[in-house]
């Protein structure tokens, strides 16, 4: 085979970069620990009260996925680091000298890390669910993989975390700074939802379901409640957010000096 740049080869290069850093594995492990650990803790905590009247909403499923919010921070931060570290270390100059067309680097990074984040998220969610169902067996909160919507929901949790990973990568390329990327990520997913209470109720009700965090949560919710999107709509909304950040990242990567 002749020596030339191809999208597949750039993706292979990005995978090699990811694999060869110890911080990748540590952060990924942390995400899994959060996902499984918090799910199990929530299940133990909830087991005693689960048969009490008035707690029908606290199903084993939502306990199992209690850790998603924490895992998404780890996954998102790793996504930011994957690209911002290229700028903070100067590696980007080696990268772009090898791939001077530039955009293939962004697509490769986003898809390679997106797939890794999806697989890790899915695996973590499944393990968290199985562990939780073991803890809860025999209570009224008992759940099993064959329950309605569970498999779809767990896939949804994986998809959510995968897209958060892509958003992290794009924020890193857009802002070129680790601190900036992480702040933007944490602000968007943890702080903005809280700020919605400052808006008049009618505005807040109209906007809140479309926030990345709420749209993401509805992707893996077992049942869609009032005032939130369906799983499919949530996925589309989060995809739109992802595409928007990627477009911004692509613009800056292509236009600005490296």
């Amino acid at each position: 085979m002749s020596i030339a740049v191809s999208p597949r080869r750039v993706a292979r290069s990005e995978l090699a970069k990811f694999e060869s850093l110890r911080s990748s594995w540590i952060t990924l492990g942390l995400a899994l620990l959060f996902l499984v650990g918090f799910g199990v803790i929530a299940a133990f905590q909830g087991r005693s009260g689960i048969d009490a009247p008035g707690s029908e909403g606290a199903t084993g499923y939502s306990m199992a996925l209690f850790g998603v919010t924490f895992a998404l921070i780890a996954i998102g931060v790793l996504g930011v680091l994957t690209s911002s570290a290229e700028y903070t270390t100067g590696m980007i100059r080696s990268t772009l000298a090898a791939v001077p067309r530039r955009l293939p680097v962004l697509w490769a990074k986003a898809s390679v890390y997106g797939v890794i984040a999806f697989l890790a998220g899915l695996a973590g969610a499944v393990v968290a669910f199985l562990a939780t169902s073991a803890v809860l067996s025999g209570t009224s909160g008992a759940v099993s993989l064959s329950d309605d919507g569970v498999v779809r929901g767990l896939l949804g949790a994986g998809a959510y975390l995968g897209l958060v990973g892509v958003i992290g990568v794009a924020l890193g390329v857009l802002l070129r700074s680790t601190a900036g990327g992480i702040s933007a990520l944490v602000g968007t997913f943890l702080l903005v939802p809280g700020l919605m209470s400052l808006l008049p109720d009618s505005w807040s009700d109209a906007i809140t379901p479309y926030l990345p965090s709420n749209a993401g949560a509805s992707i893996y919710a077992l049942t869609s409640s009032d005032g939130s999107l369906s799983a499919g709509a949530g996925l589309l909304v989060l995809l739109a957010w992802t595409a928007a950040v990627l477009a911004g990242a692509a613009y800056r990567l292509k236009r600005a000096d490296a």
Partner: protein
Amino acid sequence: MIEARELTKTYGEKTAVDGLTFTVRPGAVTGFLGPNGAGKSTTMRMIVGLDRPTSGTVTVNGRPYADHPAPLREIGALLEAKAIHPGRSAFDHLMALAHTHGISRHRVEEVIEMTGLAQVARKRAGAFSLGMGQRLGIAAALLGDPETLMLDEPVNGLDPDGVLWIRNLLTGLAAEGRTVFLSSHLMSEMALVADHLIVVGRGRILADTTVEQLVREAGGDTVLVATADPVRLRSLLAGPGVEVTGRPGSEQLMVTGRTAREIGFTAAEHGIPLFELTKHEVSLEEAFMNLTHDAVEYVASAA
């Protein structure tokens, strides 16, 4: 071959590179010389597409660098020592770059061997000394077996061993018929390796010439003569292409256009005693300082 046409880069008010037009010819070592801040690094970054020119164009072997299917085959560039993730080993760094082009693991091991990194290839690059970092940068530049090697201040901060190693490497690469384009702010370093010189100051070209010519133009090959009869010697030496200067009443003359040997014979023939006969060579460093000094003055008076 690298061809720059009216290459210009401005950062806000500041013009870093100001209408550079030059050609780096294949199969030779071209030195890119200028004081710090002359625009050398910016020019090199524009050549490989890291910076976008404000105006003008630069092509590599006839097309923009980014339009080549295998850019690393066209130019191997060492731009800054720190273009490496410190957490990655030298081998992993090179392998990641190799993957983009489908370059084999065998070639990665080959460049590690060539640059003497075999002992440390599995260690974190962040722990490398400046010299090791520079070797890793050169290994990366050699990965694609490029026709042209472009190095920005390759010997900056290196110890004598490292300097010697780079000098031998460059001479070897040039002997293989590769094009070498390297920048430096040290004329003495350039004189040892470069065939051709492009001298820049304040983003403009000051000279596009050879080493010998630069020295000649800077007033090289002057002979200093001290004699008992300067007036008579002066008239005897006169001729086309000969310039003799000296202060009235002084025993000393500065002669250009005649060799020390010729002056010695002439004086002996006519029985003129000489007290001193010294070939006064303008060093490259002096020639370079004269050039860049003028550039600074020019800019200051134009403002």
